[in-house]
């Protein structure tokens, strides 16, 4: 096997491999440690943490759909303080690289979370999940509103200072993804995470009512991969200099390569881990082999390859 430089960067954060967990799909990391060494993957993206403990949405919280699933977890979690006291030390001890995902209901909550994270050591980057309802604006999801998205990232950027890279995680459920991406980059995001789940619904055939406790849920898994690849391609075309953490239905090395060729600098694996706890390791191994087989000497050369003219 020829030498392959498999490393990647998101903002100023360096990672030895480009394969990450997806937020909300690896819990605190402990649960996966029985299956593989957390230090061997690119990094763990933690589930989105909020300021206070949350119990989330009522059950049922999931419905399987063709080649995908809906979830309506509703950001159940321990709150930032317990998270910092328990989860970060555990991951640090495992020598895992950590990307902390934060979520809030107000611009101020995001800034407050950033403030708490500012001085914590061992964190590689912050992923800002802006697919949350904005309580200050009729529950309209931040990520669906260019101005609100911008303000969240601006608040986090000001609070956190210049060190820690900020990855803004966007929703595909918008008319003009590129303009939202531009807005958050202008506001200080160093990288983008694309895509969060797509809003969906399943009707229960017994009750003939929405199946999920939360009625609607987020669609994930292979079903949405073409949407995710398109989103990454569109945004990379518009802003080739901005690194993208690509996700949505990745479960093989081929899927990861598609995403990287479309413009992603790294990939997160979510739903695939539910079906196969080793999914991330598998994607990582397969991707490495594929890159070598295609004659790449570094991951970097493959990023955005699909945008080059065919003649090359």
């Amino acid at each position, binding site marked *: 096997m020829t030498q392959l430089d498999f490393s990647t960067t998101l903002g100023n954060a360096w990672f030895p491999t480009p394969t990450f967990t997806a937020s909300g799909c690896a*819990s605190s990391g*402990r*649960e996966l440690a029985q299956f593989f060494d957390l230090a061997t993957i690119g990094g763990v993206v933690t589930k989105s943490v909020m300021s206070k403990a949350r119990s989330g*949405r009522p059950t049922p919280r999931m419905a*399987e759909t063709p080649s995908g699933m809906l979830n309506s977890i509703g950001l159940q979690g321990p709150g930032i303080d317990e998270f910092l006291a328990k989860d970060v030390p555990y991951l640090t001890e495992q020598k895992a690289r950590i990307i902390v995902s934060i979520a809030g209901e107000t611009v101020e909550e995001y800034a407050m979370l950033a403030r708490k994270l500012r001085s914590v050591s061992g964190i590689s980057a912050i992923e800002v999940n802006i697919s949350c309802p904005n309580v200050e604006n009729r529950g309209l999801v931040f990520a669906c509103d260019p101005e609100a998205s911008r303000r969240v990232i601006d608040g986090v950027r000001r609070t956190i200072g210049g060190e820690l890279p900020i990855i803004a995680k966007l929703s595909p459920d918008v008319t003009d993804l590129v303009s939202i991406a531009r807005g958050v980059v202008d506001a200080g995001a160093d990288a983008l995470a694309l895509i969060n789940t797509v809003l969906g619904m399943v009707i229960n055939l017994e009750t003939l009512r929405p199946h999920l406790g939360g009625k609607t849920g987020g669609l994930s898994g292979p079903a949405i991969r073409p949407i995710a690849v398109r989103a990454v391609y569109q945004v990379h075309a518009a802003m080739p200099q901005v690194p993208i953490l690509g996700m949505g239905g990745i479960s093989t090395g081929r899927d990861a390569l598609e995403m990287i060729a479309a413009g992603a600098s790294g990939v997160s694996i979510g739903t695939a881990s539910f*079906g*196969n706890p080793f999914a991330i390791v598998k994607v990582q191994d397969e991707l490495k082999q594929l890159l070598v087989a295609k004659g790449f000497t570094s991951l970097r050369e493959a990023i955005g390859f699909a945008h080059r003219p065919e003649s090359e």
Partner: protein
Amino acid sequence: MALINKNAANIFATVVSNKRVGQYHQLIVNIGEQANFCKPGNFVAISVGGENSRMVLRRAFAISRVSTSTTVGGTMELIVAPHGQGSRWLCSAQEGAELDVIVPLGSGFGIPTEPVHVVLVGGGYGSAPLFGLAEVLNARGCRVDMLLGASTASKIYAPMEGKRAVNSLRIYTEDGSMGQAGRVTDPISEMISQSDIAVIYSCGPMAMLSAIDSLTRGTDVVHQCAVEESMACGIGICMTCVLPVATEDGSIKMLRSCIDGPVMDGSHVQWDKVGKAL
């Protein structure tokens, strides 16, 4: 070293046999060494639909019994009800087929250290894990009474050999097609008041578990129940399988039934809050 999912391994396991029993299928699956780690109450998570499957999630099944002394290596028994696409696919698995299994998962039934009087209550295929449990309890010298119920006779799973480990077995069907007509929960109050029952072990539909909880409330009887919630991952990473449970500090938390269960203390589960927002 991992504490959660300890001993769980992802293996390719061969189907040794697949027999139809009433409305269920009894599958014997070779899980080799992993059989040594399985305890009554544990479950497995199985990929369904084969290579080109559009079903992306595993399906959970209780381990009915394990055997470590078979000629083919350690085996486990599953009792599978053909419910939807995934379980139907599993019911059609032929001898020799390979299954992608994560085994074992979840908590097990707590076993009393003293030879106490226990009652095992099973609803439908919920009886499956109770026979393996009965053997363990029986070996501890416990008096084991078993109550099985279902809507109709073909949904009662009660194998001959399983009965050896129990002191008594009563069957209830709603349509009266087998045993007594009625519900498996009907006799419980009387049993509690008339004897020295220490533990009730239960497995079956959530409504049954909740009913048993009402009957044991205010008594000294411990209720250990194996719950069944929709699970996307089975290993604790998705937060879909949660139940409202009272924790030590008195607060109610949404606990994952795949790693903090499926066996839970019935009196801690907040049955009236299941399916509601906290």
